């Protein structure tokens, strides 16, 4: 089974702090994704990566950055956390065999971030 793990289930941070969210997958997947989930808005893509050191902006990249130094690990960084970044953050990965569009994405359990 594919396993996607996220470093924390719950985080509480203060406004202005730098926040790191870590995601690790164990299936040698090429593609990795970061989403945020908000009630009534569904999932929105923040960034994705289709290879080591490669990254692409999603729909809502403002206020976020990412890092992918190793294939299995994809980090989301909030450079200066703000209260409007309070949300559930979901990481996902998928194989690159058939391209991003066809492959099933496998999700981690999520990190619920509260910014005070």
């Amino acid at each position: 089974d594919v396993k996607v793990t996220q470093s924390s289930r719950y985080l509480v941070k203060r406004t202005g702090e730098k926040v790191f969210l870590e995601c690790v997958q164990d299936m040698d997947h090429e593609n990795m994704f970061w989403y945020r989930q908000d009630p009534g808005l569904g999932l929105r893509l923040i960034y994705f990566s289709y290879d080591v050191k490669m990254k692409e902006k999603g729909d809502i990249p403002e206020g976020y950055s990412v890092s992918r130094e190793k294939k299995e690990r994809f980090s989301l960084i909030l450079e200066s956390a703000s209260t409007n970044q309070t949300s559930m953050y979901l990481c996902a990965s998928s194989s690159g065999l058939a391209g991003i569009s066809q492959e099933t994405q496998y999700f981690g359990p999520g990190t619920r971030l509260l910014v005070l």
Partner: protein
Amino acid sequence: AQSVAQPEDQVNVAEGNPLTVKCTYSVSGNPYLFWYVQYPNRGLQFLLKYITGDNLVKGSYGFEAEFNKSQTSFHLKKPSALVSDSALYFCAVTNQAGTALIFGKGTTLSVSS
């Protein structure tokens, strides 16, 4: 604009009855279509997907979905609902560029015993 609509925020059914969770999309070309389920305090789990071929797709836990190109719909169905099916369901469609998924806002399914 590309979008996915799940017109019902909540669907209520009695255990043993058939269920339908609706999804329509607005994406040009021939997108790929997915259904995911999310149980409380969990990540999303893959249920099924349509890539090509037979319009009726069968997936996990007895769920199936019917792709209708003319109506741009991909409704999720199950012949007999279980209380354990109660969860949040998301429809997703690949964007026109084929680089990402567009998710609907989700439909909460509540199955009563």
